[in-house]
C-alpha cells in the first residue's frame, strides 16, 4: 500500500531514453510513473534526490554470498547488506557454493536463506553438470522449474567438448541461458597470474590469454552448433572482446560481461605478492584493460559485474599462489563505474545501462528499467560524494579489496527493492 515519491533527482533510465530531472512514483512495489504525478497520488514517503541520480537498481550477473559451508567467509545476511549498499537489487549466484547448486534442494535452501536475509531477488545459476564435475548433466529442467535463472559451471572445467555440446543442447532444449566462464583448465595449468612480464619476474605460475580465448572460441562454435543461448562472463583480454565482436557480427546471439576490477587494474598494479590482487581470470595488461573499456563503449560487452567474492582473512594470508582468488567488490562497483565515466571511457548512461538495463536483457527479466509496471527497483546515488573504503563504511564480511583505504567518489544513498527501502545511507535524509 505504500506510496513513495522520489523527487528532484536526475533520472537516468537508459531503457526508456530518459535523462532529466523529475520524480519517480512508486506504488505497491511497482513503478507507476516517471513523468506526471498520477491523479490522487498521496505519498507515504518522499525521498529528496536533489543533486543525486535516480536510476534502475543494479543487476549483478556474478556474485558469491557464501554461507552454507562457507559461513566463515561471509553470510547471506552480511552480503545482502553490501549488495543493498551498492545499489544492487538483483543478483545472480554462481553455482560453486558449498554444496554446489546442482539439485533443487540447494535451490530451495538458497531461497530460504534469501528470505531470511530479507533480500528476495537472488537468482541461482544452476550447475551445468552434476557436482560441477563436468562429466554428467545436471537436472537442468528441474533446476529451472525450481527457479534457476541460467546454468553454468562456474570456474570448473567440463571434461570434454562432447559433454559441453550435450549440455548446451540440453540447455537449449529448455531455453536455458548458459553463463559460461571461458577458461581452458589445462592451459590454465593451475596458474595464479597473467602470463606476462610480471609473472615472469616474480616466478608466478601463469595463465596465458589463450586459456580464455580458446575456451571462448570452442564455446562459440558450440553455440552455433547447438543453438544454445550463451552469456560469456568476466572476460579479461583483448582477443576475447574481438572474438565476441566477430561472433555477434556474424549473427550469433551471444553476450558478454566484464568484472569491474578488470577495467581498472592490470598486472602492473600487483605490488609484489599482494594477495588482494589475486583474481581469476588474472589481471592482464594495460592493452587488455583499454580494449575491455573499448568493448564496453562499443557495446560488444554489454554488462559490468562485480564478481564479488568475499573471503575471510585466512584465505588471503599466505604465499600468493596458495591464497584464494577473488575480491570483495560489490561496494566499489558504483564508484569504479563512475571513474570510467570521469576517465571518459564510457558515458554515464552507458555505465548505468551496463549495470541495469543490459544485464536485465541478458536474464530476460522485467526489470533494469523504470518502466511503469516494473518492480520498483531503484538506485539513488550521489555522484560527487567522496568516501573512504574502511571498516566503518564497509558492509561486506570480506575486506579483501585492493581499494581498501582509498577514497572513492560516488556513493549510493538509497536502494529500493520492489518499492521497499533496503538501504539508506545514514548521513542522508
Amino acid at each position: 500500500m505504500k506510496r513513495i515519491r522520489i523527487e528532484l533527482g536526475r533520472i537516468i533510465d537508459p531503457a526508456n531514453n530518459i535523462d532529466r530531472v523529475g520524480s519517480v512514483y512508486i506504488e505497491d512495489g511497482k513503478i507507476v510513473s516517471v513523468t506526471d504525478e498520477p491523479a490522487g497520488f498521496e505519498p507515504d514517503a518522499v525521498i529528496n534526490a536533489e543533486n543525486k541520480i535516480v536510476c534502475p537498481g543494479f543487476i549483478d550477473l556474478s556474485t558469491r554470498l557464501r554461507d552454507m559451508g562457507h559461513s566463515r567467509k561471509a553470510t547471506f545476511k552480511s552480503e545482502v547488506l553490501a549488495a543493498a549498499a551498492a545499489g544492487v537489487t538483483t543478483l545472480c549466484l554462481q553455482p560453486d557454493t558449498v554444496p554446489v547448486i546442482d539439485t533443487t534442494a540447494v535451490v530451495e535452501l538458497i531461497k530460504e536463506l534469501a528470505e531470511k536475509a530479507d533480500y528476495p531477488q537472488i537468482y541461482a545459476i544452476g550447475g551445468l553438470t552434476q557436482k560441477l564435475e563436468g562429466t554428467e548433466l545436471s537436472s537442468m529442467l528441474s533446476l529451472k522449474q525450481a527457479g534457476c535463472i541460467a546454468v553454468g559451471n562456474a570456474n570448473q572445467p567440463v571434461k570434454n567438448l562432447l559433454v559441453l555440446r550435450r549440455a548446451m543442447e540440453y540447455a537449449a532444449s529448455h531455453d536455458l541461458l548458459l553463463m559460461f566462464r571461458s577458461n581452458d583448465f589445462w592451459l590454465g595449468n593451475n596458474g595464479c597470474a597473467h602470463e606476462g612480464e610480471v609473472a615472469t619476474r616474480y616466478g608466478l605460475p601463469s595463465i596465458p590469454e589463450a586459456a580464455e580465448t580458446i575456451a571462448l572460441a570452442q564455446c562459440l562454435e558450440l553455440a552455433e552448433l547447438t543453438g544454445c543461448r550463451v552469456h560469456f562472463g568476466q572476460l579479461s583480454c583483448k582477443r576475447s572482446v574481438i572474438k565476441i565482436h566477430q561472433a555477434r557480427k556474424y549473427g550469433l546471439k551471444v553476450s558478454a560481461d566484464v568484472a569491474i576490477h578488470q577495467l581498472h587494474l592490470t598486472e602492473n598494479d600487483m605490488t609484489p605478492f599482494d594477495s588482494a590482487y589475486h583474481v581469476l581470470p588474472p589481471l592482464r595488461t594495460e592493452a587488455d584493460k583499454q580494449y575491455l573499456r573499448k568493448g564496453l563503449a562499443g557495446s560488444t560487452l554489454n554488462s559490468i559485474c562485480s564478481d564479488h567474492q568475499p573471503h575471510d582473512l585466512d584465505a588471503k594470508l599466505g604465499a600468493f599462489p596458495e591464497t584464494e582468488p577473488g575480491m570483495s567488490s560489490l561496494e566499489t562497483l558504483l564508484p569504479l563505474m563512475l571513474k570510467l565515466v570521469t576517465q571518459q571511457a564510457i558515458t554515464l548512461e552507458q555505465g548505468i545501462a551496463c549495470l541495469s538495463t543490459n544485464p536485465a536483457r541478458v536474464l530476460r527479466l522485467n526489470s533494469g528499467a523504470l518502466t511503469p509496471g516494473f518492480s520498483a527497483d531503484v538506485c539513488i546515488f550521489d555522484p560527487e560524494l567522496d568516501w573512504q573504503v574502511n571498516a566503518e563504511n564497509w558492509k561486506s564480511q570480506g575486506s579483501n579489496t585492493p581499494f581498501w583505504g582509498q577514497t572513492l567518489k560516488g556513493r549510493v544513498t538509497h536502494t529500493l527493492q520492489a518499492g521497499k527501502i533496503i538501504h539508506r545511507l545514514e548521513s542522508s535524509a
Partner: protein
Amino acid sequence: MTDNLQLNAEGKLKHFLTIEGLDKSLLTEILDTAESFAGMSEHQVKKVPLLRGKTIVNLFFENSTRTRTTFELAATRLSADVINMNISTSATSKGESLLDTIRNLEAMFVDMFVVRHALSGAAHFIAQQTAPHISVINAGDGQHAHPTQAMLDMFTIRQLKPDFSNLRVAIIGDILHSRVARSEIQALNTLGAAEVRVIAPKTLLPAHVESLGVTVSHNLTEGLKDIDVVMMLRLQKERMSSALLPSESEYFKCFGLTEEKLKIAKPDAIVMHPGPINRGVEIDSKVADGPQSVILKQVSNGIAVRMAVMAMAMQTAAPAPGRSGGVHTILGDRHAGSVPASGIHTIPGDKGAAQ
C-alpha cells in the same frame, strides 16, 4: 616496483628476499663483506662472535642439503644458535598454516628466519607478517628468487673475473622454473654485466623472458659464442612427465654441456652450476670435474656470502667496509666495549690486526 620491504629506514639490508630493488652499491657491499669472511674457513678457529646470543631458525619447507648446510655453517661461524626445522615433515603435514608456524616460532624469541618454500612469494609473506625485530633471509621461494645463491655466484665470478662490465654470461636450461636463474639475471644486470644470455628450448623459458633483461637463444652451439661464464641449471626429472621435454637423452644432445661444446665459449670461460648436478643430463662429468669448472668453489663461497648477508641483515655490518678488513670493521663497530676482548682475539691471523 621496488622491494623497500627489504631495507630499513637507513637503506640498510633488513631482509634479504630478492635481488630486485637492491642497487649496485648494496650488492657490492655484500660481496665485500663476504670477502672479509672468506679467509676464515681455513683458519683453525672458524668462529666470530658477531651473532652470539642470536637464534636463527632454518625454516625449510622444501628439502635441501647443501643450502641448508651452508646456512647452518654460516650461522654457526657467526656464533649464532641454529635450529633446523624441516617443516615438510612436521607442522604443515598436520594442517598448520604457514602463518601459524611463523607465529609459534616467533613466540620462541628467535631473531632470524632462513626460509625455503615451494611457493613464490613465501619469504615476502613471512617478512611482511613477522615481528619487526626478526630478519628474513630467502633461501629459495618457488620459482621466484634465490638471492644468496645469486650472490655467491657473483662472488665466485668476481674472484676470477673482477670486471663485470666485460662479461658475457650464458644461463642454460630450465629458466622457466628456476628461482636461481631469475636472481642471477637480476644480480648480473645490476652489477653491469655486458650481456646475459639465456639458452633453452621455448618450453623452458617464461613468457616475455626478454623483459628480464636477457638475450635469448634456443641453440647451445650458437649461444655459447663469446661467453665468459657458463651457468648450467639443474634439470628436474618431472619436466619429462609434464610434456616440457621429450627425453633426457634428447635434452643432453641439444643442451647438455660437453667438452666439445664448451670450446665454443671463450677459452678462459668458467663453468658454474648451483647443484646438485645431474651428470649426463645437463652436464658431462668431464666438464663438471674439469679445469674450467668452479662448481665446488661455489659451494665453499656459499658460506662466506651467507655469513655476510646474515651479519648485514642483523644490522651488525658496518657501512660498506673496503675490500680488506671487513671483519674488523664489523667487529669494531658493533662490539667495541660490549664484548670481552678475548672474544675478538679468537680470530687468529688477521691481516688488519686492529685491536
